[in-house]
């Protein structure tokens, strides 16, 4: 039995920056192993877990993609025992000063991101936000120790511990996209006791925050008939525009736009309505900003859908998610997968039927 909160806390606490996902992958592997039939790792590091369907072979398969990589920093140089850094994934430099981090050197070393005072910065950076290239990371170690333990290219993760807030919410780092990994884990557990005709490929993808290389190559290798990318979306929060954000605790969003197959969207929407699950429609007029962008055009093309979980303060170390939305996302996936008929592809239409 998977307990959501401890799983999510464990997933968020695990390092796994884009391109270096193995620490979190090992946890996901352990979590998925009891509920799946075959596990393997792709050439780019994505975790592929196959759960056999009940229909006779050859069976169609659906791929559920949740990226497991996290944003963070990388060491670019060392000055007097202090680290200079660059970003991995999209970071607003204004979020960085004063953040606690873990430097993955020869061992894990705690550190702080430091904003040097104006008089130590070049003239153009002396007021306003300090660009990342001028920030430093201080480990509290003396220069000699730092030079022994850290080198250029070492990764730096945020260190903010997951914290429970009011109303069954969790705040912390890397909830983008470990919240979706947790949802897929719950889905696999639920499918274990449900009949489903289709094969299910649960995939924890790599490098979404940088190149989407994980999702693109896994979709190519596994050639599913259908795919759903599960990711996070912008939660309603102070300062964020109302028309682009979604309330926490009101269910997942169903993506709609060029990255989404209209017929597949309709089918999933019908399931949500059938089980009376609250959801919001998320208009994604161009790039969905999710793995769906890459999966949709893998090989000869794959009908793809996007489901997202609202998350406040995305790409900060204090992202906030409502546990209820993760549970609902899991349930929606489970219901859709278990109701997939063996001839679904023959009935799937690109154009909306009126």
């Amino acid at each position, binding site marked *: 039995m998977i307990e959501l909160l401890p799983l999510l806390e464990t997933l968020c606490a695990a390092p796994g920056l884009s391109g270096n996902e193995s620490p979190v992958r090992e946890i996901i592997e352990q979590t998925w192993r009891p509920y799946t039939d075959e596990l393997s790792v792709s050439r780019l590091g994505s975790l592929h877990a196959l759960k056999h369907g009940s229909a006779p072979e050859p069976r169609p398969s659906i791929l559920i993609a949740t990226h497991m990589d996290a944003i963070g920093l990388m060491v670019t140089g060392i*000055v*007097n025992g*202090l680290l200079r850094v660059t970003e991995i994934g*999209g*970071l*607003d*430099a*204004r*979020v*960085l*000063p*004063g*953040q*606690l981090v873990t430097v993955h050197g020869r061992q894990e070393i*705690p550190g*702080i991101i*430091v*904003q*040097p005072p104006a*008089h*130590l*910065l*070049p003239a153009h*950076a002396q007021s*306003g*936000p*300090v660009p990342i290239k*001028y920030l*430093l990371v*201080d*480990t*509290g*170690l*003396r220069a000699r*120790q730092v030079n022994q333990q850290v080198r250029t290219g070492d990764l730096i993760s945020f260190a*903010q511990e997951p*914290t*429970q*807030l*009011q*109303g*069954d*919410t969790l*705040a912390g780092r890397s909830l983008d996209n470990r919240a979706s990994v947790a949802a897929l884990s719950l889905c696999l557990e639920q499918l274990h006791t449900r009949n489903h005709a289709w094969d299910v490929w649960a995939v924890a993808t790599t490098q979404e925050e940088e190149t989407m290389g994980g999702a693109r190559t896994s979709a190519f290798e596994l050639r599913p008939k259908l795919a759903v990318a599960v990711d996070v979306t*912008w939660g309603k*929060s*102070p*300062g*964020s*525009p109302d028309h*682009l954000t979604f309330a*926490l605790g009101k269910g997942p969003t169903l993506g709609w736009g060029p990255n989404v197959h209209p017929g597949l969207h309709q089918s999933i929407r019908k399931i949500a309505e059938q089980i009376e699950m609250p959801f919001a429609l998320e208009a994604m007029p161009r790039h969905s900003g999710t793995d769906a962008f890459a999966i949709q055009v893998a090989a000869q093309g794959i009908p793809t859908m996007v489901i997202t979980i609202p998350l*406040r*303060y*995305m*790409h*900060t*170390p*204090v992202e*906030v998610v409502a546990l209820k939305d993760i549970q609902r996302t899991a349930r929606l996936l489970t219901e859709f997968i278990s109701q997939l008929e063996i001839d679904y592809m023959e009935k799937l239409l690109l154009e909306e039927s009126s």
Partner: protein
Amino acid sequence: MSADTVKRDNAPKIRAAQIRLLERLCNASAVSGDEGEVRSIVLDEIRSHADQVEVDSIGNVLATKLGKSRHRKKRLRVMLAAHMDEIGFMLIHREDSSIFRFDTVGGIDVRQLVGKPVLVGQDHIPGVIGTKPIHLTTSNERKNTISLDALRIDIGLDSNPKVKVGDRATFATRFTRIGPSLRAKALDDRLGVATLIQLVKHAPENIDLLAAFTVQEEVGLRGAQVAAYTFDPDVGIALDSTPAIDLPDWEQEAGQEENSFYNTKLDGGPAIYLADSATLADPRLIRHFADTAEAAGIPFQFRQPGGGGTDAGAIHRSRAGIPSISVSVPARYLHTAAGIARLSDWRHTLTLLHTALTKMTPSLLSEPR
């Protein structure tokens, strides 16, 4: 073995128990005006060691430890002040069941607030200060500082009856030891508080030690002002933590210019003050501390003269004037979510203070100023 070495060996030591106490002090929430949590730790620690302990009308803890000399005039009355309060926040408006506007208390760079976890009130209810996701910002927007006006403290999806307007909040950072360093919020001035607790417990017998654990230092040295009046001491010494700005200059890497404005440096030992915005240190006390350190082989540094201020700013102007000085533990990144100090600097600070106090006699003040 020289006499000085013997004296140093008598000085109180910082060991595991003292570091654990500093940890408790740093993790406690005590924003200016709401110092109760630190005050109760202080009272528990010192009550059985002092001759007299009182909490005054503004919340200072005033503890007296009398010297042993029968001749009262042979005992210098030395006031030592360490402030219990820290910088932080106050919730000023409930915008939603769980979203609050807040204001800052004490000197805080607003650029240090974004994306931080906080603890609200004496029950330490967790919350976060978030911001708009990078995806929804424009590159022009990212060139501007996020103003306090745009920030909120968010405690989740539901209200909590323990969180209300008027509550204080602090950064949520927990105390950690890293190699030679201590990393925590509120090192300014829990380092001073922890030092003063040790001095009360190991008070030199040649002086009357008047310990003031003060309130409201960060909002104008207000606790120290009344504490100095009450104690009416011969000498005032503020124990504080002062910025170490010993970071590389960006230009230095191109071989241009060294950072010559560092205030103090980590590993430089206790920082003896000469002049800041609030106090010109008494030259006799500067000499006394520097000479003591040199004679006893205790590393020390002079804090570069410049801005800033400590409780000495209020103490030296009390009544008819009180010769005063400050001695601080250097620490990086004070007034942010996490500072860094060296354990060795703290140890040397305690040793220097204890040794210097042991050598203080009324003749110190008969020297020409």
